[in-house]
């Protein structure tokens, strides 16, 4: 092998090693036994894992991933169920507490997951948003979607109706390859 080829190969290997190893560097806060490391990253938000939440809170609407709101928002929502966005969604005390515990433990500012950091970063610490669809990150991600395809679409009706377009939403998948807008077709960003 020519000398330049030899040294060139060393250089190439070194550059690749350096860049790959940079993946292991990270925020010291995320260094807690590798649960936030690269290989545990998912394309999806954590799917809903609490049966009570799934049963009680998808009777009327999609069971929203807990990581899309901060814990204080979930506390406020669970504390005002008798007037839940205009509806009465009261629960017995045990059920209410179990669901609140699940939501606050998995909230975006408590247990980071695929989109939680972006959601939380876009929420002012003085705010307690109640609607995911009104947060800055959500609105940014949906900025190119014409209102006519959502609020003006009888099959969707609202931006709160995630599962009508996001075909993998119940598994926590919101990526752009799985969007089919009813009456319109696939949506590729």
């Amino acid at each position, binding site marked *: 092998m020519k000398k330049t080829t030899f040294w060139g190969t060393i250089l190439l290997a070194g550059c690749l090693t350096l860049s790959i190893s940079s993946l292991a560097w990270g925020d010291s806060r995320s260094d807690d036994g590798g649960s936030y490391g690269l290989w545990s990253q998912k394309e999806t938000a954590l799917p809903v894992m609490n049966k009570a939440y799934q049963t009680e809170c998808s009777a*009327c*609407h999609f069971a929203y991933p807990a990581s899309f709101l901060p814990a204080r928002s979930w506390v406020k929502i669970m504390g005002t169920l*008798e007037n839940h966005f*205009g*509806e*009465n*969604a*009261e*629960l*017995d005390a045990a059920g209410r507490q179990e669901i609140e515990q699940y939501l606050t433990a998995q909230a975006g500012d408590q247990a980071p997951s695929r989109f939680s950091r972006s959601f939380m970063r876009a929420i002012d610490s003085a705010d307690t948003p109640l609607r995911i669809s009104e947060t800055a990150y959500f609105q940014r991600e949906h900025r190119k979607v014409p209102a006519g395809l959502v609020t003006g679409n*009888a099959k969707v*009706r*609202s931006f709160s109706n995630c599962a009508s377009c996001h075909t993998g939403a119940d598994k926590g998948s919101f990526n752009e390859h799985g969007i089919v807008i009813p009456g319109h077709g696939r949506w590729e960003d």
Partner: protein
Amino acid sequence: MMKWNVVIALLLVAAGNAMATETVVNERQASYREAGAGNFDAARGESMWSRQQMHAEMGQSVSCATCHSGNLSTVGKHIRTGKLIDPMAPSMNAERLTDAAKIEKWFTRNCKWTWGRECTAQEKGDFLQFIFNPNNRR
């Protein structure tokens, strides 16, 4: 031969569900009687079902029928979200009235939302009578 086995199995399941509904309704109505209710009447339940009452926040009159339809065998539709609601009639929907906790939960929510207060034991018993037994066979 297999086909008949399947038919018999399905009939047993249907019968089982029907028995479960009857058991739960009986148990609920027994508890209402203990709370002071008298005879239960499906016709009374039906007239309450359609009784309109002004809902301030919605800005219109609402009744049970508004979302659940006056015809218990048809699919209902939520007045705000448009979400479709499975028929109330146990004959159309085997899950209806098989879970006492679920019955009480929805009574609490929907009486408060529609009428602004909890339903009385008498009213609940009449409603169950209407939903379960519209012809008032008892």
